[in-house]
């Protein structure tokens, strides 16, 4: 892969407002059924404006008159439009709709036809297992521990799709120990390493942010969070260890541009739609020491209340995954945590700087670093 270099931004930009809908299946909720993607987006956008104290300035935001920009994402992943009918009428998505669709993230020239894309879920954790000599049972324990802590965080998150803690699920199936439940046939493997609990569930959801030049950011309601830089890299799924390579490259770029080092990062959010990414990406960006991260997971140190927190919203597997909107929901969570507004799931290390490892699509990686702006008065 040929590496890239990020230029300095001409102007500093900060996030001043955030909004997000719950990640959920609207078809399961009589109060939400019938909402459209436009309304979901609009709700997140209005929340972001209210959050910034911009209720009266909707037109200004839209026109850009004050150099304020709203950006957002919406995805309705639990349903599909019905051809010929308006958008509030949707049909439930079925496994038969999803399985052929999984190929949609693969290159059509080669990867689909040459059978090179199906390795993605397991490839990185397989490499990790080999490199550090873990047994299959240890890998399973590490992944189940991540599921467990993700579930704990999501249980405290009103926006999360799965708010039932694993303790309760376990009890319903006759287990006293949630870890025993997680390694039982109630939670079967869907790939060589991943169990059901290690795969993200599709969700309906939207999230928005409002940004403005940092020099203007202090006049709004919230503590501004500056976007220091965004690393970017992409490689196709056929490329060996593509997720590892693009994570390494995007992280290298953003560290180089910002002059920060892994020691500066207090909080990491990782797109973990396949759960092992949480651990593997955290080591690749230097947030956890190489080869040691799996032990830290087992000690609970990467849980929302640990000293190296990862995905305090619960992660894709517990928070839900509204595909195209999940990355923005990560930004929403990171900003809440940096402001100290995350309530009962607030991380304990008083974070100033957060890194987000976005990943997906075809395969793209984006790694922003966000930092709270010290108050200047």
């Amino acid at each position, binding site marked *: 892969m*040929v590496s890239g270099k990020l230029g300095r931004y001409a102007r500093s930009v900060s996030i001043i407002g955030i909004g997000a809908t719950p990640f959920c299946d609207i078809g399961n909720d009589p109060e939400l059924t019938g909402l459209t993607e436009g309304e979901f987006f609009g709700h997140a956008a209005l929340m972001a404006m209210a959050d910034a104290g911009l209720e009266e300035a909707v037109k200004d935001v839209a026109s850009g008159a004050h150099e304020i920009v709203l950006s957002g994402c919406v995805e309705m992943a639990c349903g599909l439009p019905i051809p010929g009918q308006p958008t509030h009428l949707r049909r439930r998505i079925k496994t038969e709709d999803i399985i052929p669709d999984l190929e949609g993230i693969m290159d059509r*020239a080669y990867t689909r036809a*040459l059978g*090179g894309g199906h*390795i993605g879920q397991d*490839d990185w954790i397989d490499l990790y297992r080999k490199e550090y000599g873990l047994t299959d049972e240890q890998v399973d324990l590490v992944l189940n521990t991540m599921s467990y802590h993700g579930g704990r965080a999501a249980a405290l998150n009103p926006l999360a799709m799965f708010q039932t803690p694993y303790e309760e699920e376990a009890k319903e199936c006759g287990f006293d120990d949630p870890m025993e439940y997680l390694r039982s046939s109630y939670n079967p*493997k869907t790939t060589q390493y991943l169990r059901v609990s290690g795969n993200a569930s599709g969700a309906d959801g939207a999230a928005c942010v409002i940004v403005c030049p940092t020099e203007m950011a202090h006049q709004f309601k919230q503590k501004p969070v500056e976007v220091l830089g965004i690393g970017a890299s992409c490689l196709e799924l*056929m490329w060996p260890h593509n997720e590892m390579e693009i994570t390494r490259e995007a992280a290298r770029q953003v560290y180089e541009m910002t002059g920060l080092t892994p020691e500066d990062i207090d909080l990491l959010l990782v797109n973990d739609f396949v759960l092992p990414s949480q651990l593997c990406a955290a080591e690749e960006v230097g947030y956890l020491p190489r080869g040691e991260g799996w032990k830290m997971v087992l000690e609970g140190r990467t849980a929302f209340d640990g000293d190296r927190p990862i995905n305090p919203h619960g992660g894709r597997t517990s928070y839900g995954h509204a595909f195209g909107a999940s990355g923005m929901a990560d930004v929403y969570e990171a900003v809440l945590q940096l402001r100290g507004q995350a309530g009962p799931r607030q991380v304990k290390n008083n974070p100033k700087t957060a890194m987000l490892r976005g990943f997906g699509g075809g395969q793209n990686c984006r790694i922003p670093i966000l930092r709270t702006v010290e108050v200047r008065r």
Partner: protein
Amino acid sequence: MKIEKVVETFYEGLAEHKLLGRRCKECGAIEYPPRYACNTCGYHETEWVELSGKGKLHSVITPSTLNADPWNDQIGPYVYGLVELEEGPMFNCTVFGIKRKMAKKLRDQLPVPVHALYVEREGFTTVFFELDDPEIGK
């Protein structure tokens, strides 16, 4: 600069059971599957080169409910893995001749030699790989 049909030429090669890549005129690295430019050094000029189809398998991932490709079953047992061609390129692909119950034992023997397996699909020929020694996958 003339527009070149790289993808079509590659599949025309497969139809004749020829494996084609592109060699970089600057650094000599081989781009497989072939694309316009070199992903090793970034140079834009590359030329066609026929590859032997011989290589080594470096990893074994067994297919399961989420990532199985039912179409493959008509050919035989298969896994997913990382293949390195003897000319250098490495890529993920599907490798035949390996039963799932043999995966664990085979992992201890990696890397193992494999070769190209040309397969007819509807409207085109594709290329997978298979073990040189069928015994170790049975």
